[in-house]
């Protein structure tokens, strides 16, 4: 609990502290964590809209029964590419961008530990996503076998298959480099006195996420490489006719895939745990139990993968084990939700856009958690599996959870990054439009799934028509509302409300994190000498 005494070297440049390159080159060769963070965030925002356009195509085709706009195969390409772009192009890079910007500032470090690798991991990501996007224009179309790329179906992909596989390799390399950088930074560059158990939860959740990334990205790369050799080099890893097993791929994929979904949600938890205390004007409740719960969830994520595969015909022992293990995840997740609620309890809350998005996250993520628990129960999953019920479930854990928290983070830190205040009125409008439309979009999908509508179908029986139309309307409103966010980001960078913000921006924020002790916007290089005293409010 204190102000930080930091000299910010910007007033007396020596040979080591220089400003950014001039012009466009700055963004290409930069090794500055703030510049790279900005690149990641803008790239993610762009991909959010690219993936969003694909979602709009999907919802337009599903607006009414009958095929109106696209061929079934292109529809399948859209669901596949929407998922891949949103997961690997939008949500993951956005959190890496936040990590780049915030981790050094939160732990009192001058930059990331490996700045050149930082630059490389960003540009490899761009190459990977562009390669993936280019498959849309190839003979035979983009991959259309679902983002899970299950064989044998995915082996029927046209010319795009090897390009998609190589793009996964590039994305994996980029993620692993980013993860190594984050781990190296957190372990080596914390300011004196910043012990592990004093780190902000955002840093903790990213540390754990980085280990998940290093553990599972190579597994995914291996799986897709086996697809490649099955298709082109005569192996039969996944071909029963050659002694292989198509279900083996599913095991390998979900050994990657389940931790992958937690890679997208753990940093979300971290941001929520950062924002809620500031606007409740209270310390986070149960800091250490939050850290342990995050670690437990990460551990459990490795041992539950086959709950995605209850219908493939596993032995009874396997079904029972994966059911029990999956149900266990509810416990640490529950602890987190209870802790956030207790943090709000008896606070002095205000409801600016970051807090609104964070509260919506807690509520709507919990709903996604409930349906997750329902699906953990294997016998009921025999009904839910591969229906719109699961589409509703994972979108609740991704859109009003991860994406809402990314919005919250944007509103929360934009004033710090730019030195300008965003337009709160438009922010509130953006929130209310988003929170209402996201529920119109996804809640009816629970009904559709329970009533028997399978997922990944371009057309449906007419008894599903009404809820699909409502869902599509929600989708269009949600999609359009996000243009407000784009407007706010640009507007804030260009001056926002014109009001210059203080160093701490939010009332008493300096008690909650080191970044609020720096000027707004922070100078190009910060903490070239470590801060001497660190805030302890969050403990």
């Amino acid at each position, binding site marked *: 609990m204190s102000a930080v005494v930091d000299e910010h070297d910007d007033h007396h440049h020596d040979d080591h502290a220089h400003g950014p390159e001039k012009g466009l080159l700055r963004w290409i060769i930069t090794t500055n964590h703030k510049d790279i963070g900005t690149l990641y965030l803008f790239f993610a925002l762009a991909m959010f809209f690219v993936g969003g356009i694909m979602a709009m195509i999907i919802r337009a085709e599903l607006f009414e029964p009958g095929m109106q706009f696209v061929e079934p195969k292109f529809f399948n390409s859209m669901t596949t590419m929407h998922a891949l772009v949103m997961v690997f192009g939008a949500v993951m890079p956005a959190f890496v961008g936040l990590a780049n910007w915030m981790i050094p500032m939160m732990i009192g470090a001058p930059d990331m530990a490996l700045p050149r690798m930082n630059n490389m991991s960003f540009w490899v990501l761009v190459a990977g996503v562009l390669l993936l996007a280019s498959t849309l224009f190839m003979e035979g*179309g983009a991959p259309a076998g679902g983002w899970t790329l299950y064989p044998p179906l995915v082996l029927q992909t*046209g010319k795009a298959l090897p390009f998609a596989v190589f793009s996964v390799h590039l994305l994996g390399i980029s993620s692993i480099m980013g993860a190594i950088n984050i781990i190296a930074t957190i372990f080596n560059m914390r300011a004196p006195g910043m012990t592990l158990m004093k780190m902000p939860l955002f840093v903790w959740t990213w540390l754990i996420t980085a280990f998940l990334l290093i553990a599972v990205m190579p597994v995914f790369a291996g799986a897709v490489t086996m697809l490649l050799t099955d298709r082109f080099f005569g192996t039969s890893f996944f071909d029963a006719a050659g002694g292989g097993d198509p279900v083996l791929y599913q095991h390998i994929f979900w050994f990657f895939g389940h931790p992958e979904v937690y890679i997208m949600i753990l940093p979300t938890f971290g941001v929520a745990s950062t924002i809620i205390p500031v606007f409740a004007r209270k310390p986070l409740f*149960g800091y250490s139990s939050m850290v342990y719960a995050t670690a437990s969830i990460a551990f459990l994520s490795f041992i539950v993968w086959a709950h995605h595969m209850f219908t493939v015909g596993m032995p009874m022992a396997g079904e029972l084990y994966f059911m029990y293990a999956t149900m266990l995840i509810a416990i640490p997740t529950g602890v987190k939700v209870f802790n956030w609620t207790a943090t*709000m309890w008896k*606070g002095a809350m*205000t*409801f600016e856009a970051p807090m609104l998005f964070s*509260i919506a996250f807690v*509520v709507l993520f919990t709903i996604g958690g409930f349906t997750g628990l329902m699906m953990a129960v294997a016998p009921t999953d*025999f009904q839910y599996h591969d229906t719109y019920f699961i589409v509703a479930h994972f979108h609740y854990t991704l859109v009003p959870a991860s994406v809402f928290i990314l919005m919250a983070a944007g509103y929360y830190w934009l004033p710090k990054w730019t030195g300008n205040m965003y337009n709160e009125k438009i922010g509130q409008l953006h929130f209310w439009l988003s929170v209402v439309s996201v529920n119109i979009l996804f809640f009816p999908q629970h009904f559709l799934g329970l009533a028997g509508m399978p997922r990944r179908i371009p057309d449906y029986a007419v008894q599903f028509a009404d809820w699909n139309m409502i869902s599509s309307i929600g989708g269009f409103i949600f999609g359009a509302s996000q243009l407000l966010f784009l407007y706010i980001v640009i507007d804030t960078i260009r001056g926002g409300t014109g009001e210059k913000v203080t160093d701490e921006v939010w009332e008493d924020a300096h008690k909650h994190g080191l970044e609020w002790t720096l000027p707004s916007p922070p100078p190009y290089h910060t903490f070239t000498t470590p801060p001497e005293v660190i805030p302890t409010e969050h403990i």
Partner: protein
Amino acid sequence: MALALRTAQADYTLNLMKGVTKVSNDIYDLHMLILWICVFIGVGVFGTMFYSIYHHRKSKGHQAAQFHENTTVEIIWTIIPTLILIGMAIPATKTLLELDDVQDSEMSIKVTGWQWKWEYEYLDNGIHFFSSLDEASNKARQVGSGIDPRSVPNYLLNVDKPLVIPTKKKIRFLFTAADVIHSWWIPDLGWKKDAIPGFINEAWTSVDKAGTYRGQCTELCGKDHGFMPIVVIAMDQPDYDVWVKKAQEESKKGADLSDQSHDDLVTKGATVYAKNCSTCHLPDGKGVPGAFPAITGSAVIKGDINTQVNLVLNGKGGMPAFGKMLKADELSQVITYTRNALGNSVGDEIQPKAVQDLLPKTSSAPAAKVAPEKPEPIADMSKDELVNLGKSVYASNCASCHQAEGQGMSPMFPALTGSVVVKGDINAQVDLMLNGKGMMPSFGHALKATDFAAVVTYTRNSLGNSVNDAVQPSVIQKLQLALPAEQDDDE
């Protein structure tokens, strides 16, 4: 919207359906139990949160408390959810065990998923057919068809030939697939099961109430994944028996093998093409570059007709083996059609009879009967010779199910080691192998007499068995000659 037309469609529900089996009802109860637990917890947590949001706000002048941890509370809200989870796991485990029990089933149906249709084989009475999307739905679902789906009864949930099952009987389903993974789901039965190429999955049902139950493929299987519905009609036993008779008659109908004029072949081929080929190769034969080759100007079609016949009959890559799906006359028509229409004009043709000769002998269509050659007498062999030869016959014909060491794969494929059949009367074993039983195919025609005798002798004197007897090829030869002709439906 379209309320008037609702009557033609299934009733709409917001919740899971109870279904028509005991298992589906158990699953429904389990679903409701967990749903209410979630609602209860949700009301508690969200209630607390909204109370706090309303009362503990700065604008109302509330002062923030500064408490920030309490180990007792953390322990309480870890233990209570654990207890709730245990309460959920117990009924879940019971239902799961019940679902898995395929013992004592009264009949078996093998279900094979194809891109994009279902194949049904009744293992007990030989009924066998393919089931695909009905024509009305198929027309309406084309992009820009201009047909209002609401005018089509059971749009996308109707098939040309439904699966018919008797009520109140325990039916075992065996699932597999011919190309990619599919998944077979009828919500009213309470479960879905994946159909995986090269593997066999099991599930069972016992339907209480006669009626028509509809479902769909639920594993993404390519472009027409949304267009391969499943319809099950459950009939009471007397009605079912009538249906079986009729279906057996139907199955026996073979192809019309009489020669047809060139123009007839082409005309009829157009219909076969529209139904079976146009989904991928497109109605105009232009194909989809990179995915489905064009028929128009195709090198295969312009080349030797035998190459094309071979490709159509046996499939290649994404192209299914139509030899298993279509009859000889349909095959000859569609092949002739593709060579002389859709922008091609090769000018030749193939007659049904020629196609029939190329079809695999196990096809249900009648094969051109070849008079059995007068068998050469076979010399006797010693037991050791038979065992040695039997080893390789076993490896290529039996080991995939009964396993290399004869340990079988419980519960589907019985172990041979210590098997009562193998240890019992040799004639009973020979009879079982000649005629098959359940999943066990009949090897009567599939194996040469020598190989047959060798493998019987091998199983009785190896794989952990030592009955110490043998059967001679000449004995088997006599039994084989006495077997009914291979195509028992050839009349």
